[in-house]
């Protein structure tokens, strides 16, 4: 597959894929500037009114603040637990390690709807009221596999001798992790945090099942959509997309740049 035709075919495939993914979002972005209340082309005129509405409507900003707080705490907790988990997976030798690894990563394959329902049933059984913190606990379970995977790869790359040298020079296990492993994982830790953040920020199902009154941004968007369309959603969606995309790109860049 090195001929000019094959190369052109591959390039075409790339652009088609990119178009399938980004065209709908592009259409949404275009309509977010349209004065029409409904999606019609050509647009009668252009405006940034909808963007203004996003900021003046208190419900959207409340949802945004909730989402940022929730995603921030979720990613912080997931990154810390994920690091501890990843470190043990790389270094510890214990029976059932393979099974444990599988169990940690398996939630990635379970339909989110089932996870959401299961969490709702379970928390109700425990007598817990739906709330933002509860949704946070649920979302930690959701993003934890990502954090573990990411950090495990990085920790596995580190030469064992660095940590052993620290021990031999008098460092305790914890001290060696703080002095040697954590600095070597800095970029990966930041990237993991951002990655978890983007996933938690967009997460709808678990948040929907585990919150009631204080809603997150995705839930606000959903409820707005089911009660009748509002072009503000186009503006909001475009902003969320740009926000998430820039976070995602930053995380990828950090991961590719690698820790030094």
């Amino acid at each position: 597959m090195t001929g000019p035709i094959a190369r052109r075919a591959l390039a075409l495939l790339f652009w088609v894929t990119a178009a399938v993914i980004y065209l709908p979002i592009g259409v949404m972005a275009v309509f977010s500037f349209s004065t029409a209340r409904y999606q019609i082309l050509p647009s009668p005129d252009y405006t940034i009114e909808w963007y203004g509405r996003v900021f003046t409507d208190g419900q959207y900003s409340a949802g945004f603040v909730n989402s940022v707080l929730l995603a921030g705490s979720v990613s912080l907790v997931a990154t810390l637990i994920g690091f501890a988990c990843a470190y043990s997976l790389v270094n510890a030798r214990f029976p059932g390690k393979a099974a444990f690894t599988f169990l940690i990563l398996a939630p990635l394959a379970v339909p989110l709807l089932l996870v959401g329902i299961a969490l709702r049933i379970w928390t109700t059984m425990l007598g817990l009221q739906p709330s933002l913190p509860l949704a946070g606990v649920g979302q930690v379970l959701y993003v934890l596999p990502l954090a573990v995977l990411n950090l495990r790869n990085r920790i596995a790359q580190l030469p064992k001798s660095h940590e052993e040298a620290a021990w031999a020079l008098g460092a305790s296990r914890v001290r060696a992790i703080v002095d040697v492993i954590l600095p070597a994982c800095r970029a990966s830790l930041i990237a993991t945090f951002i990655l978890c953040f983007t996933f938690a920020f967009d997460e709808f199902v678990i948040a929907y099942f585990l919150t009631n009154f204080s809603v997150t941004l995705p839930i606000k968007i959903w409820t707005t959509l089911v009660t009748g369309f509002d072009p503000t959603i186009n503006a909001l969606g475009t902003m969320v997309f740009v926000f998430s995309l820039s976070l995602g790109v930053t995380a990828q860049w950090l991961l590719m740049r690698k820790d030094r």
Partner: protein
Amino acid sequence: MRAKSVTLRGLSKSFGDVQAVHPQDLEVRAGEFLTLLGPSGCGKTTVLRMIAGLEVATTGTIHVGEDDVTGQPPNRRDTSIMFQDYALFPHKSVRDNIAYGLKMRSQSAPDRAAAAEGWLARIGLAGYGDRLPAALSGGQRQRVALARALILEPGVLLLDEPLGALDAGLRRQLQIELRRLHRDVGLTFIAVTHDQEEAMTMSDRIAVMRDGRIEQLGTPQNIYDRPQTEFVARFLGRCSVIKGRAVAQEEGLVRVETEALGTVLATGTAVPGATVLLALRPEALRLDDGAGVRALVTDAVFTGSAVRLGMTAADGTVLELDLSRGTPVPEAGGQVGLRLPPGAAILLAS
């Protein structure tokens, strides 16, 4: 004196079904430079890592000085280790790397910095303290790793292939430097290497290891001159091995009948009638036209300081002999006469 002895008793290690180290006894004297020498996979690094506390011994005990350290973690032992890859912390400056051990002992920052500067000057890297390890050459990194390990003045310094990551020229120079450093600091050094020349140059004593066992322990000269087994003879320096039958014991020498070289007087002891193996170093054989033993010259190789003559004896045994410069070199394909001075051949344990 800071230097401490290391005593291993019945020390062994198995990884699952693999017996990496068979139960070993070893006594390393305080202040001595001992090298564990052997091919890769012989268990030498495992022994070193057990002394450092980085591997848990399967059986046996380890004493550093008077203390039984068998169950102690590495940070509680009076040992330091230098790794083959040096294991310098890449995100810490050279100064912070060197001072790391002192930081773990809770010394004040000014004291640590002063001690680190002292070591930087001592290893010829004054002014390099603020650099990161990545900005140093291989030889400089090796010296920083040494300084980092020695700043704690450990009773025992463990060196895992200390020169393994360097190129040949630098290696020879650093063998001498390491030897000098050992004399200066007066600590016990235990090194691991697969390089026999390195072991001979640096060590007071060498323990030759094979398949998880110490096969022979002695001074470099003793091991070179009196190898006890064919493995040791071949691993340290070049040698030819010939077969024979012991005939009689004569005052520390054994009369051996060989097909290759006729009757030979070898160093060692053997029961008359036993089948034996003899090791011959290239410098043992002499050319002698009047001698009764003949061999066929197969090749002559210039090695710099000498010419190495390859020969085959009457029974096909391959022999080697070093000719000093200036001696006429016999032509390949010709016959030469060989003489073996009494005691020059070494009897090996069979």
